[in-house]
């Protein structure tokens, strides 16, 4: 990632509830954004495509976040596959991967980059 990265404002951090996903429309793509609170109480933001390849539906943002073996994951709501929020790789089938996006907090604003 270079300095030229273009960050786009998405929403205020207060609009995202801890551990509950939202879906953003970003460059015509659906992006699920999660604010996961880790055990030390620190907030971590993740952004991942909202399209679930197993159910072929835009539903990832409505899954439950958590961890499996030290990986922070999201469980797809329809058939419950887990995706590593860091890499987008599916835990149950390593060949399946969803795109992830750079996401950051600028002041109180959540921003995405391509």
């Amino acid at each position, binding site marked *: 990632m270079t300095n030229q990265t273009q960050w786009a404002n*998405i*929403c205020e951090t207060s*609009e*995202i*509830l*801890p*551990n*509950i996903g*939202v*879906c*953003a*429309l970003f460059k015509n793509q*659906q992006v699920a*954004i999660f604010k*996961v*609170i*880790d*055990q030390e109480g620190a907030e971590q933001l993740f952004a991942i495509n909202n*399209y679930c390849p197993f*159910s*072929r*539906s*835009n*539903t990832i943002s*409505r*899954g*439950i*976040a*958590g*961890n*499996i*073996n030290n990986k*922070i*994951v999201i*469980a797809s*709501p*329809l058939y*419950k596959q*887990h995706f590593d929020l860091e890499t987008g790789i599916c835990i149950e089938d390593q060949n399946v991967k969803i795109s992830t996006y750079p996401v950051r907090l600028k002041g109180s604003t959540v921003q995405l980059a391509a």
Partner: protein
Amino acid sequence: MSDKIKLVVIGNGPVGHNFLEALVESGQSEHYQVTVFGEEPLPAYDRVHLTSWFKNQDVADINMVKEGFYPQNNFTLFTGEKVTNIDRFKQIVTSESGQEIAYDKIILATGSFPFVPPVPGHQRDNVFVYRTIDDLEKMTAAAKNSKVGAVIGGGLLGLEAAKALMDLGLETHVVEFAPRLMAVQVDDGGGAMLSKKIQDLGVSVHTQKNTQNIAAGESNFHKMSFADGTELNTDIIVFSAGIRPRDELARNAGLGMGARGGVVINNNCVTSDDNIYAIGEVALWNNQIFGLIAPGNAMAKAAVDHLTGTGTIEFAGADMSTKLKLMGVDVASIGDAHGNTPNSRSYTYVNDREEVYKKIVVSEDDKHLLGAVLIGDAAEYGSLLQFMLNKMELPSEPEGLILPSVDGSSSGIGVDALPDSAVLCSCMNVSKADVVDAVQAGACDMGAIKSCTKAATGCGGCTALVTQVLNNELEKQGVEVNTDLCEHFAYTRQDLYNIIRVDNIKTFEELLDKYGTGLGCDICKPTAANILASCWNEHVFNHNLQGLQDTNDYYMGNMQKDGTYSVVPRIAGGEITPNKLIVLGEVANKYNLYTKITGGQRVDLFGARSEQLPMIWRELVDAGFETGHAYGKSLRTVKSCVGSNWCRYGVQDSMGMSIRLENRYKGLRSPHKLKMAVSGCTRECAEAQSKDVGVIATESGWNMYVCGNGGMKPRHADLFASDLSDSDLIQYIDRFFMFYIRTADRLQRTSVWMDNMEGGLEYLKSVIIDDKLGLADELEQEMSAVVDTYQCEWKTTIDDPIKMKRFTHFINSDKQDDNIIFTTEREQIRPIATTELELAFEVK
């Protein structure tokens, strides 16, 4: 045909039938031309479970013969046809109706008959024995005009007969000659505790009573007079004074007999005539008659092996240890229960508060178990029996085996220590190796083990042990029997429930902090949310709870395959006004929703986008609808038939009751979904017997059924209580649901919960009806707390603008999800299939 061996089986009881099954299993049955005679009018039924006939008075409940078994195997069965003679010289058997059948081999399986001592008056009317369905039918008929019943004989069967009398609504007495009950199986201390417990249940026990005369009574039909000058007035008498082998055929045919009866057999079950085998209760082996089913089945197997030459199993005697539940009281007796072995030592534990008596008898050096008596709590039966049967060395302080453990850990044996040959289930002769093999072949729950090994399908006494072996084996294979909920909590759902209640925990964070690790996941979060809801019943969207909900709970609708949701308003009991139906139609039209009548007697509207849900529900709530909780592990529907208001057969207002029940339990969160139904009469149009709780109207109230299931593995509900008043019915259901909520596993329907419950239906009754655990008040209070805090989740949500925000698809745009595409079929929408979609793009 003619070169087949002519085999005649005399007696179609459990053992005779078991022989035929074993013959088929040997693969040799086609070489035999088999004729079976049974004196009773019905084909073989399970006498061990005779008493359960009372439940429905339906022989189907205890029938042993798989449909088509006799014709498929070309066996000829004559029921209601007694054999009257065996001519060993002409090799012909003759039956009552005069049939003559030639034989090459005979299997004598005529069982035994109840012994009736020749007390003057024993031939009077209303004097019965307890052996056949016919006996039960006669008793039931006589009970209708009777108030008092007495059983003569306080042994195992006598107590079972006493239970039957009690269930028939009679004041019940047990009269025993010996100074204690079950004199053969238990010692004095155990007998005393047993008497006490049985008297607590309302049965009067009279020991040391020698019945000398039965005559016409004044206040009652009979008057019994005892040797000590006392008397007892009763309307019905049941003799249960022991059994005698039905050996008259054999005696007349001149076969070798024991001095006190019984047909003498060798280890191959062959009698003194090489062509005649005897098996079951008629057979005398090593001067012993075996009055239990397991030895009978073992004899059947030995006879098949010898007859067909397909095996070498011989009958080698049998262990007579028993474990039973008599009127809900656990009773077990193992080996040398009386400590008759010279120099043996015994250890006893008596707890008068809990009414528990336990004794073990061990060898002089404390190394081996010789016998045991357990009354009131027989949890250790399985492990103690294995210690004895396998001559396993006892731990250094053997009394620890029966002392209550202070830290809650079990003092039983590790099942790993059992040898492969250890017989876990004696009824069905299933060894540890059989169970292990089944697990290795893929059986991974008790249901599968039962169906492929038959273990635990007899008396049920071995269930706990078989389950332990199963779990142990699964663990070894690395299969997650691990009862931990998930990697975040090393607890079962039941543990977590107790923790949340006792520690008064209100949030997942607190639970995780104190008892878990990591961040949680899609297993433990919804489970915790569910338990928190069962306990505290707060709104699913409450700040601390919302992140825990499955999407269905979170959106208060079931997500469909394309990401849209279904809308299911509650239609209690299936009753709906025309106006409300019109509203449903209008709403469905307005939002273009697919509309269907569900299998639960209500209407489901499909295809709502998340952002449409609040508007749709606004209109429904305004029209008086509430959420139907089609999402969520909670009460679904209480189906009902139309009942006595309209139906010519209805005996109670099933509609009214179902609506009352649905409104009482709506919103109740539970380990899995709950379904109920109410039928207005025994025709059962609401299919109540397939529900978690089913209610069927009777002339005088309601019959309550529990633990039925449709779905993947159907299970008929069990009759739980009869002729209940409205308030008793609701009280029992309150307790039942709350007890289930407390103790079931995650996603365990009541049916599976029941199938895994040690002690089964009787235990459940003792908890819910007799309040054995002293929990009833607590359970009722917990239920009323839930009922009092009910809110329609949708109504609360649409009244709160903040809660409404979550329903938009995008956080930063008002656009819709363009991946939701419908097509139409039969004038309604449906999600377009991927194949159709691809086609559409190609055409473009």
